[in-house]
């Protein structure tokens, strides 16, 4: 049976009426989509919109409840990944599926060996890897061990894996989440090259900029449904955001100029050496004033997490930190989250599922964690006043628009954005002098991002100091009043958002101090790989 054609061409992929439910949750509802060969097709949607489920069906991870898949016009059953590979589909997952202590070559060959003996497979693999590298400009060292190379390189290995299996259709799931802007540009160059060679590429992302930059066509998903498919040239970011969320969204953070006051946080020559004796933070100094947001940009793993942990009271450090002029204990002996809170530091941790919430506990319990010693939560000085906490939780959830507004529900049952709202509500409501915020919108959908950003700005306008750590440059640029860039444990420089751009910040994030000079991608990669050695 031949599928419908468009402009005389058979679509590389055509999905017809795909539906998939997990229990009562309808992840995909009657989805039909057509992807033309030799194009880059973007799929955009909020978290939980069903993008990943759809692609997992295409890659044989899930079986659709109903619907048909046509590959190059041919009706194809994809019961498992093996069948997907045989149909010429390759997938680059958001979390790489690589064996970390294997070499690049071994990872590429794994599962696509020629025979029971390894050596001939490896020999042919090495040869072919070389050819593929040259053909598509994907430079990798076949003998490098995965855990020793940077994420950008690892991603290239994933792409090579797919190409080695002769994939004609490449699906990339949130590929730029872990990349610096320079690395992302490099990835896009590779994708364009692949497109020129006739490969079909599906790009799943929630970043509007990427869709606009590189795709030919874009499909928007919302709540399990494919709401629209348009030519990229016929749309714009605001339009796409509206299609994603279903209402108008403010993409830029709306904020007045800051009016900085007294210095609240004064960090002087801070050094952190972790338990593995790795020097994570190297002589960092900065100040945050009342009524301003200092954004710390950087590729993850360059010391930002450790910085937050020290300020949050659960990592030891040397140096000096003054809060409102008084020193904080850095020895780890007297410091913990509790003592920091007592000093007026609130913390929205980077990893909300592990550090911000107890996932199996209900929302109302989570809204009180760390503050359960507060007098208003105590009864007779001995017991916790559960009804007071519950009542408080309900108020907070209403005010922060947590959905569903049910405080008895376990934290794990909320979406990422609503989980984050619970954490933010808990920390902001305490009226802290200093708010530490790590990756406030990681895994949070656009609607909730807007809300959380507004809350942070409101706190700033109330005259509080805010230290924001994020790997999302857009977020840093939009929220911060000043930007510091961290690389390899050091602060590379401070910039004002009005006087810098993503390119300059990207170079600082890659450890380039001289941002005026032209830099090659190789140079950047080398620098990043060097910084990675510490890990």
């Amino acid at each position: 049976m031949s599928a419908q054609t468009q402009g005389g061409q058979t679509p590389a992929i055509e999905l017809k009426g795909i539906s998939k439910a997990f229990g009562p949750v309808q992840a995909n509802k009657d989805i039909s989509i057509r992807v033309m060969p030799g194009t880059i097709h973007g799929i955009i949607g909020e978290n939980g919109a069903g993008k990943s489920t759809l692609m997992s069906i295409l890659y044989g991870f899930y079986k659709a409840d109903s619907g048909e898949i046509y590959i190059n016009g041919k009706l194809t059953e994809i019961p498992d990944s093996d069948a997907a590979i045989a149909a010429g589909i390759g997938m680059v997952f958001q979390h790489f599926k690589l064996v970390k202590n294997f070499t690049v070559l071994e990872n590429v060959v794994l599962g696509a060996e020629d025979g029971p003996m390894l050596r001939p497979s490896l020999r042919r693999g090495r040869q072919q890897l070389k050819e593929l590298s040259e053909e598509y400009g994907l430079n990798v060292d076949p003998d490098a061990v995965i855990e020793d190379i940077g994420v950008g390189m690892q991603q290239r290995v994933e792409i090579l894996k797919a190409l080695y299996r002769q994939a004609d259709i490449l699906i990339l799931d949130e590929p730029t989440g872990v990349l610096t802007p320079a690395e992302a540009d490099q990835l896009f160059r590779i994708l364009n090259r692949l497109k020129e060679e006739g490969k079909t590429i599906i790009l799943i992302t929630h970043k509007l900029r990427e869709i606009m930059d590189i795709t030919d066509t874009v499909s928007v998903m919302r709540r399990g449904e494919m709401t629209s498919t348009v030519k990229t040239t016929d749309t714009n970011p605001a339009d796409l955001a509206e299609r994603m969320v279903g209402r108008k969204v403010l993409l830029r953070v709306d904020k007045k100029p800051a009016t900085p006051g007294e210095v609240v946080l004064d960090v002087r020559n801070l050094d952190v050496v972790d338990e593995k004796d790795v020097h994570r933070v190297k002589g960092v100094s900065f100040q945050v004033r009342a009524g301003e947001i200092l954004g710390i940009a950087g590729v993850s793993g360059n010391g930002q997490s450790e910085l937050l942990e020290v300020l949050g009271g659960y990592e030891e450090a040397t140096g000096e930190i003054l809060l409102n002029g008084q020193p904080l204990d850095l020895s780890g002996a007297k410091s913990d989250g509790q003592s920091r809170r007592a000093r007026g530091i609130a913390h929205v941790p980077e990893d909300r599922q592990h550090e911000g919430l107890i996932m199996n506990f209900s929302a109302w319990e989570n809204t009180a964690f760390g503050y359960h010693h507060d007098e208003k939560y105590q009864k007779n000085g001995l017991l916790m006043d559960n009804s007071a906490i519950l009542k408080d939780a309900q108020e907070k959830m209403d005010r922060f628009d947590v959905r569903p507004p049910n405080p008895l529900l376990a934290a794990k049952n909320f979406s990422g954005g609503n989980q984050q709202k619970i954490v933010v509500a808990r920390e902001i409501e305490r009226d802290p002098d200093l708010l530490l915020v790590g990756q406030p919108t990681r895994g949070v959908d656009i609607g909730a991002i807007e809300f959380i950003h507004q809350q942070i700005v409101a706190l700033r306008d109330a005259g509080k100091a805010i230290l924001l750590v994020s790997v999302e440059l857009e977020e840093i640029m939009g929220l911060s009043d000043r930007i510091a860039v961290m690389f390899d444990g050091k602060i590379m420089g401070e910039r004002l958002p009005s006087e810098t751009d993503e390119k300059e910040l990207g170079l600082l994030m890659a450890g380039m101090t001289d941002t005026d000079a032209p830099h090659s991608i190789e140079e950047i990669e080398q620098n990043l790989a060097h910084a990675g050695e510490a890990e």
Partner: protein
Amino acid sequence: MDFFTFVQLGDASVRMAIPLLLACLAGLFSERAGIFDIGLEGKMLAAAFLAAAVSLVSGNAWVGLLAGIGISIALSLIHGLASITFRGNQLISGVAINFFAAGLTVVVAQGWFAQGGRTPSLPKDARFNGIDFPGALTRVRDKMQADPWAQFYSEFISGHSILVYLGLLTVPLSWWVLYRTRFGLRLRAVGEAPEAVDTAGISVVRLRYTAVIIAGVLCGVAGAYLSTAVQAGFTKDMTANRGFIALAALIFAKWRPWYALGACLLFGLFFAIDNRFQNIQLEVIWIMTGLFAAAAAMTLYALRRERIDLIVLGGLSAVLVFVGLATWIGAMDEAIGATAALFETVKVPSQLIQSLPYLFVVVVLAGFVGKAIPPRAGGQPYVKER
């Protein structure tokens, strides 16, 4: 000690190392595939019993060996069913197998043979006997008078049962399978990153079951070796925690076949020392030196760690120092003067010698011997996500 004593010690070390080695490689295959196997002990024990019982009845050690392998594979499959198919807790499943084997072997042995939970002694032809190589001396008296090379050849090289040679061969074989075959690559991958194997279109379940079955075969041979080659029959709990020592050896060996050989030979040496030297006499000064050195090493180590380590290890060091001083003071009764007491010889308690391999297990597990990184996906059932 003369050369022949060394040869004998080496010979005994190899004999004692073989069951450890087989169990260790069984654990290696299983754990490299991501399935922790704490049930090595139980599988060995069940195999030891069934191998002895079937050898006895059939009169053929090979039939017994097959029976031993069979029951061991059966237990492996139960472990596989629990931990791979039903994604249960691998430790609990392993512990269950150990209890099951420890109890049932004795009960069935009593039911079949009514000799208090053991099998009757196996006749010579129902056992795996030593193979004498051409030209090897067989009588101990001849060996003692022979030249060193003949001693080495006759005692160390020749005279073992076929299972010893097979056991030693499994080391290069395992290495070859792991590092030179497609199966080995996939096996190593599935223990590190099952999701990588799965997305490459290979069945995680099938790979893990294969690994578990290989572990079953190796444990079966190990058990049969104990009851039909080393001993002549099954006795209650005859594996004597070798399954657990094999796990420690596996950690010590960093999950590598050749290292496993080294680790198991070391443990075999401890067992051999225990067998051979029930009665070791040492001068007090050496005992004190040894104990003080151990105490100093532990304290120095603890000083670089946290306070709790210092309390625990410092306390342990204090005990060692106390034992050393007590030995000295005890020796003063025999000798005249404190200095003379230092050179008095005393008997090292045989219990201490017996506990050497187990003490070393503790040392290995405490991580004093380098850092061992287990396979990353070890112990976790694989659940497809997204």
